[in-house]
C-alpha cells in the first residue's frame, strides 16, 4: 500500500505513476490497484483503472511506467492510500538448474530493496514472504532481518526517484511449477441448448529440470522426500451443471480423473498419465458441455451476448499462450468481444455440421495469463431467430426430396419389353 501525498503546489494530481524494470514489465501478467474508503469496519475497496503510461514520459534505463487514475483528483498537500497488486510470471529462476529426484527445488528471486518509483519516497519497507522457512541466502541491505519464512528489508527513508537496490533471495520452493505452454479453448455456442467447450493443453513442469534416474520405487515408497517438486494432479474449476466431461490425449482416454459437482461450481481433478518432473511435458484435451441458459443473454439494445469466463480453468497455473475461439451459430452477424483487459482479436470462419456459409468465430489471444484473469467477458452478436430454422429445413427438404424420388421411381415403368403381345 502506498500512502501518496501530493506535494505539488499548483496542480491537482489526477493519477499516480508506478514503475517497473524492463525485465519485470516483460513478465507482468496483471496490475491492479485499489483504494480503501471508509474506516475500520466500513472499509470498502474501490478498484482503480491502471493503464500503461504515455510513452512520452521519460524514465531512465528503460523503466516502464503505468498510471493509476484516481477517481477524484488529489489536491495539493492531501494524502490518499493506494494499494497496488501485480503478478509476475516466470520470474523465479531455479538454481541449481537441474536437480535429481531426491533433491528439493531452490529458486532465485530478484527484486529491489527500495521501491522503483518516479517519486521521492519518504519512508518504506519491503517484506518478502517465502513459502517455506528454508532460505539459503539473501542479500543484506541494512537494516535487514529474517524470521522463519519472512525477510524484512526496512525501514528506509528519503529515497530519490528511481532509486534501486538489487537483492537476490535464494530459497526453497517446492510448489508445483505448472506451466501451460499453449492452451486453445474452443467454445461452440449452439442455439439448440448447449455450449460445448473443448480445451487443448500443452503442459510442462517449468521448474528445475530433472536429471538422472527416475526411480518409481523411490517415488512410491519415500513420498515425502522423493520428487518433492513434482506434481501429479491438477484441479480445474468448471461451471456448475457441466455434463459429458471427457479427459483424453492423442492416444486415448485417460481414466485417472474425478469430477465433483455442487450447485455453484464443479471441480475436475485430473491426473496426467505420469507425474511431472522438471522439464517433462504432457498434452491432453478436456471437453465438456454446459446448458445454454447459463451463458446466453439478451442485451439492452437487442443483441445477444454470451457471458463466458476468460482464462484457464486449471488452478495455480500460468498460461504462456492462450487462444480462445468463440464459435457463434450460423447466421450471426457483427460479432464483438468485450474483454476487460488487452487482448489480440480477429475473426475467422469455422465449418461444422450442416454449415453452408460457415460460422463466424471470434479469436482472442493473450500471453501470460494467470488466475487473476479468470473474469467474465462478453461476446455480442446479432442473430435473427428465423435462422434457427435453416438447419431443420435443410434436413426436412433433403428427406422430402428422397421420399419424392422414391415415389416417382416406384410409379414409373422403365421396362423395355412390351406388355402387350403384338398380333
Amino acid at each position, binding site marked *: 500500500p502506498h500512502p501518496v501525498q501530493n506535494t505539488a503546489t499548483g496542480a491537482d494530481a489526477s493519477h499516480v505513476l508506478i514503475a517497473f524494470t524492463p525485465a519485470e514489465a516483460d513478465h507482468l501478467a496483471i496490475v491492479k490497484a485499489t483504494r480503501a474508503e471508509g474506516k475500520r469496519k466500513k472499509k470498502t475497496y474501490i478498484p482503480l483503472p491502471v493503464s500503461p503510461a504515455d510513452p512520452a514520459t521519460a524514465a531512465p534505463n528503460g523503466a516502464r511506467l503505468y498510471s493509476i487514475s484516481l477517481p477524484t483528483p488529489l489536491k495539493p498537500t492531501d494524502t490518499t492510500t493506494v494499494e497496488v497488486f501485480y503478478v509476475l510470471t516466470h520470474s523465479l529462476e531455479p538454481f541449481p538448474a537441474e536437480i535429481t529426484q531426491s533433491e528439493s527445488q531452490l529458486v532465485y528471486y530478484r527484486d529491489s530493496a527500495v521501491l522503483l518509483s518516479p517519486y521521492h519516497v519518504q519512508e518504506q519497507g519491503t517484506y518478502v514472504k517465502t513459502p517455506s522457512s528454508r532460505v539459503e541466502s539473501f542479500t543484506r541491505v541494512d537494516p535487514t532481518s529474517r524470521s522463519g519464512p519472512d525477510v524484512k528489508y526496512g525501514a528506509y527513508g528519503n529515497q530519490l526517484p528511481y532509486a534501486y537496490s538489487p537483492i537476490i533471495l535464494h530459497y526453497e520452493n517446492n510448489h508445483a511449477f505448472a506451466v501451460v505452454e499453449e492452451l486453445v479453448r474452443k467454445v461452440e455456442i449452439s442455439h439448440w441448448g448447449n455450449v460445448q467447450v473443448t480445451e487443448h493443453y500443452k503442459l510442462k513442469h517449468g521448474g528445475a529440470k530433472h536429471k538422472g534416474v*527416475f*526411480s*518409481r520405487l523411490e517415488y512410491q*515408497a519415500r513420498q515425502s522426500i522423493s520428487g518433492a517438486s513434482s506434481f501429479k494432479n491438477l484441479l480445474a474449476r468448471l461451471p456448475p451443471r457441466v455434463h459429458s466431461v471427457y479427459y483424453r490425449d492423442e*492416444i486415448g482416454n*485417460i481414466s485417472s480423473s474425478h469430477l465433483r459437482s455442487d450447485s455453484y461450481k464443479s471441480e475436475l481433478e485430473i491426473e496426467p498419465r*505420469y507425474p511431472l518432473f522438471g522439464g*517433462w511435458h*504432457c498434452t491432453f484435451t478436456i471437453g465438456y458441455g454446459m446448458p445454454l441458459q447459463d451463458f446466453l443473454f439478451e442485451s439492452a439494445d437487442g443483441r445477444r451476448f454470451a457471458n463466458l469466463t476468460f482464462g484457464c480453468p486449471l488452478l495455480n497455473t500460468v498460461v504462456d499462450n492462450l487462444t480462445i475461439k468463440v464459435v457463434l451459430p450460423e447466421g450471426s452477424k457483427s460479432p464483438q468481444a468485450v474483454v476487460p483487459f488487452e487482448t489480440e482479436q480477429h475473426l475467422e470462419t469455422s465449418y461444422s455440421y450442416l454449415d453452408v456459409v460457415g460460422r463466424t468465430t471470434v479469436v482472442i489471444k493473450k500471453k501470460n495469463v494467470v488466475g487473476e484473469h479468470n473474469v467474465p467477458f462478453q461476446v455480442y452478436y446479432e442473430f435473427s431467430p428465423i435462422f434457427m430454422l435453416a438447419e431443420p429445413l435443410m434436413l426436412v427438404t433433403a428427406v422430402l426430396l428422397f421420399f419424392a424420388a422414391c415415389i416417382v421411381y416406384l410409379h414409373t415403368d422403365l421396362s423395355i419389353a412390351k406388355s402387350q403381345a403384338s398380333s
Partner: protein
Amino acid sequence: MLVLAPAACILSGIALSSAFDVLTRSMKFQLSKLFDDGPAISGNGSPNGSSASTVNTSSSKNEKTEKSEAAPKEKQSKKNRRKDKEVTESVSVKPKKEKRLSVLPLEASIVSTLLLIALGGFYVVHCVWAAAEAYSAPSIVLTSRSREGLHVFDDFREAYAWLSHNTDVDDKVASWWDYGYQTTAMANRTVIVDNNTWNNTHIATVGTAMSSPEKAAWEIFDSLDVKYVLVVFGGLVGYPSDDINKFLWMVRIGGGEFPHIKEPDYLRDGQYRVDAQATPTMLNCLMYKLCYYRFVETDGKGFDRVRGYEIGKKHFKLTHFEEVFTTHHWMVRIYKLKPQKNRIRGKLKKLKSSSKTSSTLAAGRKKNPWQ
C-alpha cells in the same frame, strides 16, 4: 463354431418373422370375425377392422425389418444360441397347431405379440451388455475388479506417452518385437524390430542383446544407435505376458543366428528359472537385470507374482544402463544407455568386469562377433 453364427442369425430371423406372421394373421382374422358378428355396428365396424388390421400388418413389417437388422449384428455366444433354439422350437410347434386350427385365439395372439416385442427389446439390451463385457477389452488396457470397483492398468499407454513427450524425436527404442508397432504409433519413436518380423537376423540381434551380460548388450545396442531399452515386466501385478515369459524365444532366436548363445546355458533341468536355482548365465543376462532391478525393495523378498517364487539375484547394480522411467504398476520399464566412459583404466577395469560374468561366457566370448 463361429460358422454357426450366421446360420443361427438367419434361422432366428425366419423364425421370428413367421411367428409374427401367424400371430398377426390370427389377430386380423379374429378381429374381422368379431366385427362381422355384430350387425348393428357393421357400418363403423369394417373400416375400424380394416384399419386395425393394416396397423397390425405395418407394425409387423416394422418388427420384421427390426429383427432382420438386429439379427446380423448378433454376436456369437452360447446364451444366444440356446435362446434361438428355444424360439425355433416354439415356432416349429405353432405351425402344426396352425394347420389344424388355422388361427389362434385373439387374446393369446395379442399377448404373444407383445411378449415377442418385449423379447426383442431385452435382446438388444443383452447384446449391448455382451459386447461391452466380453468383446471390448483392448489388450493394451487391462482391468481388474476389486472391492473398490474397477482398477485400470493403463501402464502401456503411460509409457508410450512418456516416451513421446520426454525423449528427443530421433531417439531409438529397443524392445522385443511385440511392442514395435505400438511404440511406433503411440510413442512416435523409431524402433529396432517390430511386428512385421521380416528380418530374422535383426530380431536375433536384439534377442542376443537381451540374453547377453550388461557390457556385451551395451555394445550391441550402441552399435545399433539405440538410446532407450524398453522391457515389459508383469511380476509386481501378475501380468503373465511379460518379457521374462517370452525370454525363451529371445534365447532360441538369438542362438539360431549367433552360436555363442547356447540355450542349455539358461536351462536348469530343462526349465527356464529365475529363482535361486537359475543358472549364472540367466541371472547375469540383461533381460533379468532390467526386469528385476531394485524389485526386491518393493516387498523385501522379491516375490515374482507371475512365476510364483522369489527371484534368485536380488541385490545388484546396473553399470551400463540407468533407469529413466517405470510405470505406475511396474509393467513397463524404460532404461537409457549410459554414455561410454572417457577413460578405461587399464587392467583393473578389465579384471573387475570379467569377474562378474560366468566362466562359460568368458570362454565363449572369443567367438562373440561383437568383440
